[in-house]
């Protein structure tokens, strides 16, 4: 059975935001929205779950802090203790003040870079990916709504037109 997908193209972010709410209120599922910039409140309107990216960043940051401290403890206290400036530094606690700057830098390093990697992996963004939106104008000034049809194309098209779309396209997908 061939499936059909309907593209509703809008030229205003407020109009598409309202359209998303109206169409979802009618019980239809919206598969995707492509936009040239983030639309405030669209994730709620689409029923997307909040992202957990910030939580991962916190965990990565804690990992960085722990590994940094472990490294400095091993190198300065355990493996080769050195007397620097004649100050007592043979225990971790005595030497801790000097470890704070690098501990902080490594926290940020891990939190930022691993979060960015997580983001790229989760969004499947990588150099060489040729994915684009169904209409190139969505990185310029157009907003596109994608709805999969299961034999109810006419109803969806009418609904999309009603919500203020400037263009409606229909496409077969395998």
């Amino acid at each position: 059975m061939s499936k059909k997908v309907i593209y509703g193209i809008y030229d205003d972010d407020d109009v598409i935001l309202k359209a998303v709410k109206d169409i979802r209120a009618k019980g239809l599922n919206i598969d995707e929205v492509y936009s040239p910039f983030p639309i405030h409140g669209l994730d709620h309107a689409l029923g997307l779950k909040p992202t957990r990216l910030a939580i991962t960043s916190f965990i990565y940051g804690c990992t960085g802090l722990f590994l940094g401290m472990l490294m400095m403890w091993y190198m300065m206290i355990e493996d080769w203790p050195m007397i620097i400036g004649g100050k007592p530094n043979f225990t971790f606690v005595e030497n801790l003040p000097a470890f704070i700057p690098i501990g902080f830098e490594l926290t940020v390093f891990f939190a930022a870079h691993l979060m960015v990697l997580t983001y790229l992996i989760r969004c499947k963004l990588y150099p060489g990916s040729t994915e684009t939106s169904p209409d190139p104008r969505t990185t310029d000034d157009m907003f596109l709504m994608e709805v999969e049809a299961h034999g109810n194309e006419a109803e969806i098209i009418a609904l999309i037109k009603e919500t203020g779309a400037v263009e409606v396209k229909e496409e077969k997908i395998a």
Partner: protein
Amino acid sequence: MHYESPIREPLILEDKTLHDITEDVARPIEGKANKWWWALFLFALAAFLWGAGCLAYTAGTGIGVWGLNKTIGWAWDITNFVWWVGIGHAGTLISAVLLLFRQKWRLSINRSAEAMTIFAVVQAGLFPIFHMGRPWLAYWVLPLPNNFGSLWVNFNSPLLWDVFAISTYLTVSLVFWYMGLIPDFAMIRDRAVKPMAKKIYTILSFGWSGKAKHWQRFEELSLVLAGLATPLVLSVHTIVSMDFATSVIPGWHTTIFPPYFVAGAIFSGFAMVQTLLLVMRKVVHMEAYITIKHIEYMNIVIMVTGSIVGVAYITELFIAWYSGVEFEQYAFLNRATGPYWWAYWAMMTCNVFSPQFMWSKKLRTSIGFTFFISIVVNIGMWFERFVIIVTSLHRDYLPSSWTMFSPTFVDIGIFVGTIGFFFVLFLLYARTFPVIAQAELKTIVKSSSSQSKNKSHE
């Protein structure tokens, strides 16, 4: 939705639509370079090549070719290092701190300011590496076990903290910048007609398509990265200042250094942003986005941070007197009245006196005057680092070793070379990258553009 009072001055002029923004940002990339660009580029390239030659000479012969002597072991190189790192700070401040404070005026300038940050930190990094004398052994600063046993790097040394701070700062700024660039590269990709350009921007845009979930993650990512970059940028110059503050040299051994260096960094960074953007907005026709209002806001930052720096200078003098330490007192007296008095007073004039003109609305909204002051501040901040470093060293505890510093042609050549390298990178950037964060700028068309303001008056 973001609401803004109609009385507030618009941030986007000339009634730009979403499509106009796309066109304006893509134009410098798709068009051909004019002769001004080529003239500047070749000039910068020549300076860069001269500097590269001087660096090669230094690496081949040794740092004896610099003007350093046994009293003054740090001079132009570390001055230039601190100067360039400081310049970098404005980019992160604009993109991260202003994001956290929800300052929408950052949107037209953050991309170029971040580019400036990255290019400036690249220049800064060259100096400590070449100061090592054997730059091919630069990896020895990393915590690697050496060949002779398990002797490690010294984690109690601020110079090692610097290694971690600068490399974290450079790499985090780079990914922060690049994550914001992805949607804009996708815009360039989607309208590219030449096959080569299409291919390049396809690779650069990582397959961005603007899905709702991706935008949701993008916004969270930007916010968290800004939250991380804000303490990071403060820590970087704090640690740079500790290179000096943790030593026992009079004039360096002061607790005021971290906040004073951070304020100075922001001050010099904003001056460099002004220098670059005042030219760029004209050359690539971004006058509608980088408006007089933006320039005025930046001038206010320059005025405030310049005054903070001024307070720091005076506090240093007061504390030197109040401490009762004669070495400390002499160091500051010598700065202001000794053989380097001209450097001290150049610093005072450029950094404390000149930004006070910005109290006048007329002057801070004048493009020509702003450009002039931005150059003055750049010079003044270079002198600040020179004064701190050289005047504190040239008269040490042993009067028989008192001396002066005079740079050789290699010192000058390397400094000029880094300026050339910086401009080479910036000019290439201005022709191939979207110079305005257009995707994010488009979010304020409805609230802060002249068009929307006119509508709300009707």
